[in-house]
């Protein structure tokens, strides 16, 4: 196995080992931190598909993160108030069932990604960044001004949603749910990277003309990647809302988009485990530096600068060297 492979295994095992140890040592806060890492990593894995593999610099992934969050918030709030979401033409009731909420989050964020992608992928470069940012901000202001689900104050959910057979209020069990979903996403991306689709998407990033000349529409390939990417980030939003039992417009804010991008860049763009390494580093720094100074983001900024200037491969690149090629 390559060096990167070993580092990946070490990473994913430590992400499991820390909360398990915390469970034994009775440190529930550490479990929550690990859960945050897993959920943020999932958001980053989603963005990395568009950004790393597809070269699509989306500054609007908070849109999908927020939609996942609100999918959970809306379904769960109706379930806790026993008021149906819709009565005519058909009855739709709220739910506290995680699998149903996840499917809804995946579906809705996928549809929104299809709409946003269909329009913004007609542009490239700076325009693409700006259009995705604009869509994200549109949803942000919409969520602020929509009073039915808390508006600016956000929407609290009193108990965590249910997963059959598990006690989701137990931190370690909820961590395991998030962890397994992250692992599934990582397996999916690792297969996708080596698949026909991965080859086409990767080639489209390098040379649009090459891909068009062999008869493949780069627009469709990128749109597909953008939708899959949005769906994964949407699912992470639903989990994040469930972790906090709270949904707020800040999930839609452009700072959230920026943070997701920071996970990817810190960890290593286009590296399978980049978002995992990046999210872990981010949470650790937030925890350590945030305890020292309220201005910890300055240090994060310096670190980000160092990564962009001196270590393009991020943390994974620093540890594992240049990416290995297959083929």
């Amino acid at each position, binding site marked *: 196995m390559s060096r990167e492979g070993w580092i990946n295994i070490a990473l994913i095992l430590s992400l499991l080992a820390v909360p398990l140890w915390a469970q034994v040592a009775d440190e529930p806060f550490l479990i929550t931190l690990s859960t945050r890492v897993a959920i943020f990593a999932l958001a980053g894995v989603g963005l990395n598909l568009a950004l790393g593999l597809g070269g699509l610099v989306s500054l609007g992934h908070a849109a999908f993160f927020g939609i996942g969050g609100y999918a959970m918030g809306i379904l769960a709030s109706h379930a806790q108030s026993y008021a149906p979401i819709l009565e005519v033409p058909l009855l739709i009731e709220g739910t506290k069932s995680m699998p149903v909420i996840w499917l809804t989050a995946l579906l809705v964020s996928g549809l929104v990604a299809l709409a946003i992608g269909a329009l913004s992928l007609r542009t490239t470069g700076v325009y693409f960044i700006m259009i995705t940012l604009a869509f994200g901000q549109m949803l942000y202001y919409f969520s602020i001004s929509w009073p039915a689900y808390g508006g600016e104050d956000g929407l609290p959910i009193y108990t965590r949603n249910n997963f059959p057979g598990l006690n989701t209020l137990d931190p370690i069990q909820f961590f395991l749910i998030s962890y397994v979903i992250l692992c599934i996403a990582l397996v999916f991306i690792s297969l996708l990277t080596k698949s026909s689709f991965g080859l086409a998407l990767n*080639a489209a990033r390098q040379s649009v003309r090459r891909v068009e000349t062999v008869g493949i529409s780069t627009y469709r390939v990128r749109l597909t990647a953008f939708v899959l990417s949005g769906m994964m980030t949407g699912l992470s939003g639903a989990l994040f809302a469930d972790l906090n039992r709270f949904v707020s417009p800040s999930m839609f804010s452009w700072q959230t988009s920026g943070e997701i991008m920071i996970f990817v860049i810190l960890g290593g763009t286009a590296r399978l485990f980049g978002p995992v390494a990046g999210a872990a580093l981010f949470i650790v720094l937030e925890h350590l530096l945030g305890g020292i100074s309220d201005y910890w983001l300055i240090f994060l900024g310096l670190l980000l600068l160092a990564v962009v200037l001196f270590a393009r491969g991020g943390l994974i690149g620093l540890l594992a060297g240049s990416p290995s090629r297959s083929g």
Partner: protein
Amino acid sequence: MRAAALLVYSPEVRQEVADSILATEGVCKRFGALLASDNVTLDLHEGEIHALIGPNGAGKSTLIEQIAGAIKPDKGKIYFRGHNVTKLNTAERARLGLARTFQISALALEDSVLQNVILGGLGAQGRPYRFFKPVLASSALRETAEAALERVGLAQLARTRAGELSHGQKRQLEVAVALTLKPKAFLMDEPMAGLGSSGSARLTTFLSELRHEAPILLIEHDMDAVFALADRISVLVYGKVIATGSVDEVRILPEVRRAYLGDDAWDC
């Protein structure tokens, strides 16, 4: 041969448009004050190499771009295999079997040579939307790709990163990718450029055989290669086809002869 046999735009050409595999009819393209294509009508028959020559800035590449679908003509029509493809984009024309190689190589430079060629096979299959199966495990794609690399003489370099290839090898790779598309016609924009004399001679032999698989519309500055290969030559000047004919017919034209007397407007 009689100079009168030259086919300049005429009613007979219109008739031929219908019979040929690839044809342009009255294609016009203007960039501001520059008329890059001025009522261009030409065609490509089965089994031939049709060379397009002319001075720099005559509009050869613009014409190729329009035929390939990267630029839309202002006026005129483009036919391929009996279809009017004027409104189709590059990918759609490629799926009909129009293969193109570029003047400046367009390759996925971070990918291996093999991956670049497999991408061609993937395009030919038409469905790159498989997310789980490793593409390199597909024996059909791999065999097509390896056969194409074998034909252009790059089989030894299959695992090399495309960006590490020499200029000439990149050209060969472009041709290999085009081969995997099982094309019905080739558009080749200066495939000889940057090749050494031995590479150039080898490619000449290769293209000479290739025309029986699919006809080639060739832009080339290497006049030795053009005269050795072409069944017909069209001369483009200021966006206009001033003559179309056999090598012997075109050779004696004053515009072409001037080229060999050192007129700077021509480079060959």
